[in-house]
């Protein structure tokens, strides 16, 4: 016969686990301008926990038909699978957000040590810079 203390401990652990599951992680963001592709200068870390597992690199951009097209590499630094979401935001020359709230969060599953290229195309020709936000699921 196990003591009530044993069950209390178990119940407390379950409660803690439930509260941890309920928490979502905010993430990391990369800010890019076509004339300045130094990702290290423009990487903002809001969550060390996520930044230790996922990183953004190789920011590239070009103009296609008057629209800014960008490519960034999302890499899983761990050996286990990691599910993240990303979203682009676009800004004009005056740093005003263009077509705010149009781009949606996109889910992506990164296998262990896998890197994928995420691609974004500006909604119109007024875009001069962008931001990529990444958060954990």
């Amino acid at each position, binding site marked *: 016969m196990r*003591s*009530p*203390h044993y069950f*209390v401990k178990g*119940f*407390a652990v379950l*409660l803690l686990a*439930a509260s941890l599951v309920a928490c979502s992680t905010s993430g990391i963001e990369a800010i890019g301008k076509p004339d300045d592709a130094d990702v290290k200068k423009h990487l903002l870390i809001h969550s060390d926990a996520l930044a230790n597992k996922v990183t953004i690199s190789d920011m590239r951009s070009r103009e*296609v*038909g*008057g*629209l800014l*097209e960008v490519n960034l590499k999302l890499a899983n630094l761990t050996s286990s699978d990691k599910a993240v*979401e990303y*979203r682009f935001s676009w800004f004009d020359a005056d740093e005003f957000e263009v*077509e705010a*709230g*149009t*781009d*949606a*969060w*996109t*889910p992506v599953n990164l296998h262990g040590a896998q890197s994928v290229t995420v*691609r*974004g*195309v500006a*909604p*119109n*020709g007024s875009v001069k810079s962008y931001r990529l936000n990444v958060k954990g*699921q």
Partner: protein
Amino acid sequence: MLIKKRSSILSVTLVAGSLLLLQGCSTKVGYQDATGVETTTIDFGSTDLQQIAAKMVDSVLTFPPIVQVTNERRPVMFVDKIKNKTTEHIDTESITDTISTRILRSGKFRFVDMTKVAEVQEQLSFQNNSGMVNQDAAAQIGRQIGAEYMMYGNLSSIVKKTNDVKDVYYKFTLKVMHLESGIVEWSDEKEIRKQREKSLFGM
């Protein structure tokens, strides 16, 4: 002393647990981010629609032959229905609405809306034939611009399930045809695969 302490820990834990359970039974309404990832069920949802629209718009606007055409002018396009070949009821017009809105707002194409032909005809007839509208200010009949391109496509799915797992694969195909020549100028596909697994307690 030890028994008393354990008993108080037990009481606090049970009260906390009961509160958590009671909270779980209450109904709560709140606004959510419309652009957030939605995984309420495995059925076609807002995240699928948004992913499809983003991929298709990015693809068509950066496809070299289309870029060449849209650099010179803003061609007129009309959107045909997307054939829903899945077993689900999916509002495919909503998908094409999102795609055409984004393409229009890019400033690269213009659209004609074939769902409004009857209403336009009625209004033009009123302006030109009713005798109630000043003819100097009336929109003239026969001056609309015909579409140069047509957008059309399919949405299909493959569903597989066992007792514990349901797997859904969606494939959205979109094409742009040059109406005069009948040539398909652009086409692309977006694949989405979702899986639902029953949890440990079958919930």
